[in-house]
């Protein structure tokens, strides 16, 4: 057993946003030494995103920071002055990957662009994450996760009954961006394993999000159909498919291949498969209310989500149900797989957070607690640069 698949890597994380943080969380969970480099005066801006513990704003207790920065180190280092920049350059000389999400050109203006620092370390992988990429007519446009989703083509379909399109909950666009950024950096790293050369990697969040596309743009080039109408998955159940109410919530009914026979068996009477409302799709659609009242409701209204889905899955029908976040930590399957990880943060207290979804048998991921701003100044600078007396740097406001 090693300390992780990526335990040989030093990552300098200059990013502020959620995508950069999720990207470097992957490196941290897989064993890399990830050092957040935060502005000495105000910290990385991810720390300002709520909700906070007890809803009291505190840079150490934002939920996104606590979750996404787990297992990283933090140094507070302002690099807009010469001393800070020189210190950062010394760290860059030792790093494997630098991650940044500044507006295109901003680090270049500070003399810290890829072209500037690649001379310090020709093996450096310099990962830039921006909303639209480093090039193109939109590169300087302002954006948020919602407006990127709009541009990506993936927001348009998430609407029902002519109502407005709705984004996915949380910050999925930024998580997609973090995944694609990680994957793109790993591409450069695997190439470096062979060539020993670093490079600049330019990741666009828009392109990352657009890539989760249900094949729709390609389909347009095959069929001329621009947008597929809403599948029935979110519609109220009718005629044996869709979302049906049950004793304790809703079940998504999806009989699947050969389904009506299986559905009949699940409802307790395989003979029903010969009933004309089971055999004749058109008739069932026409008399959906009758079908539901006679066959579905009696079964569903007396059983729980778990009971119904259990019974359906036993027959090979891929039913599922909506779990709310508070139901997840005790869900038996996740419990048995020990998915949630307990961590203890000195200020936020005991937390149970989602574990890594990548279960590698020889190099299992390891989660840990998020650092307080600047808490690793001494250890990082002494370990990596051999600096022992930081007082003059602190006095100058560099640290």
């Amino acid at each position, binding site marked *: 057993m090693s300390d992780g698949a990526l335990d040989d890597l030093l990552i300098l994380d200059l990013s502020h946003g959620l995508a950069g943080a999720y990207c470097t969380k992957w490196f941290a969970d897989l064993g890399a030494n990830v050092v957040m480099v935060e502005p000495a005066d105000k910290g990385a801006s991810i720390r300002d995103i709520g*909700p906070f513990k007890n809803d009291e704003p505190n840079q150490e207790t934002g939920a*996104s920071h*606590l979750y996404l920065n787990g297992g990283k180190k933090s140094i507070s280092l302002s690099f807009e002055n010469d001393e800070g920049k020189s210190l950062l350059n010394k760290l860059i000389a030792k790093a494997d990957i630098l991650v940044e999400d500044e507006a295109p050109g901003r680090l270049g203006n500070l003399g810290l662009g890829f072209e500037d620092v690649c001379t310090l370390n020709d093996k450096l992988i310099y990962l830039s994450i921006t909303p639209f*990429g480093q090039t*193109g007519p*939109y590169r300087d446009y302002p954006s*948020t996760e919602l407006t990127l989703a*709009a*541009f990506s083509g993936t*927001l*348009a*379909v*998430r609407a029902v009954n*002519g*109502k*407005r399109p*709705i984004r*996915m*909950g949380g910050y999925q666009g930024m998580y997609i961006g973090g995944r694609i950024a990680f*994957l793109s950096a790993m591409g450069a*790293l*695997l*190439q470096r*394993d062979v060539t020993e*050369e670093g490079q*600049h*990697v*330019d990741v*666009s969040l828009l392109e990352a999000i657009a890539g*989760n*596309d249900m*094949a729709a743009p*390609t*389909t*347009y*080039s*095959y*069929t*001329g*159909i*621009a947008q*597929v109408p*809403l599948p029935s*998955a*979110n519609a109220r159940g009718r005629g044996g498919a869709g979302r049906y109410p049950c004793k304790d919530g809703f079940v998504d009914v*999806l009989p699947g291949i050969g389904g009506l026979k299986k559905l009949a068996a699940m409802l307790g009477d395989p003979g029903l498969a010969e009933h004309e409302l089971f055999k004749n799709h058109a008739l069932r659609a026409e008399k959906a209310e009758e079908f539901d009242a006679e066959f579905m409701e009696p079964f569903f209204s007396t059983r729980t989500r778990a009971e119904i889905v259990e019974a359906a899955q036993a027959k090979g029908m891929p039913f*599922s149900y909506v*779990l709310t*976040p508070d139901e997840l*930590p005790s*869900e*038996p399957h996740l419990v048995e797989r020990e998915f*949630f990880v307990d961590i203890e943060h000195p200020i936020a207290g005991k*937390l149970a*957070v989602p*574990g890594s*979804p*990548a279960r*590698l*048998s020889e190099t299992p991921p390891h989660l840990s607690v998020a650092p307080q701003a600047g808490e690793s100044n001494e250890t990082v600078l002494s370990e990596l640069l051999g600096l022992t007396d930081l007082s003059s740097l602190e006095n100058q406001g560099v640290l």
Partner: protein
Amino acid sequence: MSKLPLEGVRVLDLTRAYAGTIGTLYLADLGADVIKVEAVTRPDIPTREMNPAELDPGEKPWERAAYFHRLNVGKRDITLDLTTDTGKDLFRKLVPHCDVVTENYNPQTMRRFNLHYDALKELNPSIIMASMSGFGADGPRKSWAAYYPAMESMAGLTAITGYDEDQTLTSLTGYGDWTLGTVGAMAILAALHHRNKTGKGQYIDVSGREAVLAAIGDAMTDLSMNNRVWKPSENLHTSMAPHDTYRCKGDNSWVAMAVRDQQDWIAFCRAIGSPAWTGEAQFSDQEKRHENQEAMRPLIEDWTGQHTHREAADALLAAGVPAGPVLDPSETLFDPQLKAREYYEVIDHPLVGSRLFPRQVPAHYSAMERQPRSHTPLLGEHNHQVLGELLNLDATSLKELEDSGAIGSEPTRKGRRPPETSREKMRQWGARADDDYLEKLSAAYGKKIGPNG
């Protein structure tokens, strides 16, 4: 300029349908030799027959589908039937020539084939095997089948997405599948780096439901820390307001916008012509706007309703306010930014001609030139190439395999023909459908898009 990073990495790919094939699509984009394994008795249907070119199934309906082509471009394809001894035997012989084996069967299936990780490791000690399933390789619900809605709904994402608790939404874009496939590829890349250092392979178990759950870590941390349960919150943002999609001129046309702070608000008011309502006390600061966001909707739509989604977004962006037209997927093919960065690639397929494919790893690399990808393989297209090159099978042996039906290029079990559809019918169902799509695309991409000849 160097070659692609995964050149020389060979992936024996048993994935089917959606999630798993997405995982190996990333590997193919990064230059890996992905050998997709199908069986003539069980090809990758239904994706092989969904949305055929020109909506015409043609003589070989399994070779014309947009879905299958999108998910398998750049791979090679062989046919082996793992339920037969011959198929299993050939598969076992291929394993020593490969670096990675991928699959997204139900967790029991590979064991039933006697091709689980321990068996593969005997054949190739440094093999990396990745299983991508809905619920993971162990646990009481491991055998549950899961399509993308299940991976999202059972991960808590559906419960926090939608208009309200009575109308929650799944992604409708296959997000659970994308997330599972992406995480599978990420884990494989990490394992490859570990193998480069140590020479050791390993087994990777990824659950799609866990992959989605890891992406609502903020909600789960808030639950753990504050005992708060996130609910569906439409497009509301914790601090920004307005932050939503608004109806524009035209049919089902919307613009998204986000006013982040007071400076954005001032710019927003100016951009929409400073109508009197923007001076009302109930909208005077971010907190009040957040509270009264619903009251703003008709007022904002008075303005957006006079403009197309592009016009509205352009006016706001020019003023420095984050905005974006809610593009339907086809509009992205014509978007200036994606065009400028060559996000879509034109790839020529022998049966359907030139079509458009996004770069699955869209990053721009300074030391790697993008390579043109090979067309989505035909069923069994590389039987001779792969079995000949890797297993040294000669023409006679290959012919014997073909004659016995062990390998081939035509499905023996045909899928149920997808229901006939037409653009006219799709329009009746509310979809936008263009009859002149090939002309439009050919003009936009400066080359003929559509069937050859």
